[in-house]
């Protein structure tokens, strides 16, 4: 029997019981839709979280003072016996091959006063490279100038929120700002960047690292961020950074964390999350599969006569097996298509209703869901189709 004929035969069998077939494939459709929707949410959360972490760029390596020991890394900001990271360290790293920038960082919390208003905010001590390291943009004015260590002028670049709070719509450029006990001149305002894990990245002020060390009375940097060229191997660059700093410090008394490693771990965790919610949807798919087994078993019983007839007309056992199998697969695949549309539709509705809620349906999931429904149909069809192909034709013809 030709494949097109057996498919048509199966479709005719399915459409001859419209309501029953529809309800059966609805079972699969609900399962597929649940899997699609849940994995879409999982994948959306995955992408959302990764985007949160990669908004500073993925090709960043962080260097913190102190070495991770069994006791754990000492909290940053608390003096340790480890040698401190210095401005010179940051400068030195800029010269490594494939490194496109490195920014020292010292951060603290201070009162910022200007234009007759006072606001407590986060102060980042950085250098000219910070704009690349943070993938940030200047909205008006300039970024911090590139200046030699020890000669940095007292300039400040305001975060967009801080600017709004202090100056409203007035032009802040050139205004004098008091941060802690020091005075700074505003040379620029950053473009808004939003939040990162609940921290408002716009409620900040960026000042030269040298000045921040003065402000907070520190001798070393909190952290150094190294930015390397797109496409370069993180491991190679990290090794070069380690080698250079070890040379400068005499031994490895710092910790290098590549963004890539961190993201990989995070991504794995999120993948497991996606799979877990997908498996929850899979339970409803299982119920749908049981529905197919049920309806196919009923169908075989109802059509016992027909099976006997097909044998009498010269159908092989295998042909009968294939007919019932393709009917089950067709049911499941139709359910799969319906479920796919349902799932994607619901995901879209969810996206429209809750724009902030991350939902993402990758094509691979859609194709995978269809393939999965066909496989489910095949598995669900095996038992009924086998019993159909094993019927005794004489009994089958006699059955009423």
């Amino acid at each position: 029997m030709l494949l097109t004929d057996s498919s048509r035969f199966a479709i005719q069998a399915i459409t001859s019981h419209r309501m029953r077939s529809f309800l059966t494939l609805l079972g699969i459709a609900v399962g597929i839709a649940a899997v699609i929707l849940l994995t879409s949410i999982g994948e959306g959360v995955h992408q959302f979280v990764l985007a949160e972490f990669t908004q500073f760029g993925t090709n960043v390596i962080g260097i913190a003072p102190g070495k991770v020991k069994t006791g754990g890394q000492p909290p940053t900001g608390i003096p340790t016996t480890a040698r401190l990271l210095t401005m010179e360290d940051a400068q030195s790293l800029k010269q490594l091959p494939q490194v496109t920038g490195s920014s020292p960082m010292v951060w603290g919390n201070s009162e910022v006063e200007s234009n007759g208003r006072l606001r407590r905010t986060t102060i980042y001590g950085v250098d000219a490279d910070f704009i690349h390291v943070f993938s940030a943009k200047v909205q008006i004015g300039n970024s911090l100038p590139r200046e030699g260590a020890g000669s940095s002028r007292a300039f400040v670049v305001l975060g967009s929120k801080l600017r709004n709070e202090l100056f409203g719509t007035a032009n802040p450029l050139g205004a004098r700002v008091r941060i802690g006990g020091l005075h700074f001149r505003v040379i620029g305002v950053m473009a808004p960047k939003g939040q990162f894990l609940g921290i408002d990245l716009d409620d900040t002020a960026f000042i030269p690292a040298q000045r921040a060390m003065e402000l907070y009375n520190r001798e070393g940097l909190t952290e150094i961020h190294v930015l390397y060229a797109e496409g370069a191997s993180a491991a190679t660059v990290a090794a070069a950074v380690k080698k250079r700093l070890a040379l400068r410090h005499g031994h490895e008394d710092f910790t290098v964390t590549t963004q890539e490693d961190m993201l990989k771990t995070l991504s794995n965790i999120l993948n497991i999350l996606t799979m877990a919610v997908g498996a929850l949807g899979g339970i409803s798919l299982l119920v749908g599969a049981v529905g197919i087994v049920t309806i196919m078993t009923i169908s075989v019983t109802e059509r016992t006569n027909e099976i006997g007839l097909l044998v009498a007309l010269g159908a092989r056992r295998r042909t009968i097996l294939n007919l019932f199998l393709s009917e089950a697969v067709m049911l499941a695949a139709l359910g799969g298509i319906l479920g796919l549309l349902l799932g994607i539709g619901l995901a879209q509705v969810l996206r429209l209703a809750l724009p902030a809620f991350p939902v993402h349906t990758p094509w691979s999931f859609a194709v995978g869901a269809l393939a999965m429904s066909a496989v489910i149909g095949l598995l669900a069809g095996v038992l009924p189709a086998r019993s159909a192909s094993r019927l005794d034709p004489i009994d089958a013809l006699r059955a009423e």
Partner: protein
Amino acid sequence: MPDDAESLIQLNGIDRTFTLGDSQVHALRNVNLNINRGEYIAVMGPSGSGKSTLLNLIGLLDRADAGTYQLEGRDVTTLDPNEQAKVRSERIGFIFQSFHLVPRLTAAANIELPLTLSGMPSAERAKRVSQALKEYGLTDRAHHRPNELSGGQRQRVAIARATILRPAVLLADEPTGNLDRVTGEEVVKLLEALNAQGMTLIVVTHDQALGARARRQIRMDDGGIVSDVTKSPDAATPGIVTPNIAPTNLATPDSVTPDLAT
């Protein structure tokens, strides 16, 4: 007499036993039967006499427990299921009391079914089906489903389906059992016309009137053939009775008369 004694079906010492619960039922006991090409045979007998079992066996739906079955000179007793399916498809046509049409398929699709199952390309099938519809006067009913057809039309569809692959033998199990007398008569005439064209026809029936029309009449009881009568073509001459008693005695009629010209 022309050289028409070519043997189509030859059964030798066929036994068939069914186990029903604890008891053994002998559906066929030592049946010997020779059927020539072009014969018109009625198999009669009470319920449980084994006539349906005989028909199923000839149609390769059942296997003998003992004995041999030769169809067109080929031993088909021990064919594997796929070869049997092929023989059924090409050499045997079945007609059932309850028609056994597939209810969701149109008349044309029902007639097409054996062709579809044999894997024939669709263009060739369409040609054969439209030819068959014309021959059986069903062209205007081609796209009707069985429930929209009368009993006679249904059986005509079933006959068209059984004969579309030009089988060597047509096996009819109570073909008029579900029909009124008038349509039953039409169906019998149709079957007889097919027989007149050379197709071997074996009819199993309770109906004495129907059985009496066959040239050769086989009576069965308790799994054995008790009488095998062949009428002379001349209706005035009474039939010759050849009792089938000895196992070696093949129930060969000594005056086979497929005088198709008349």
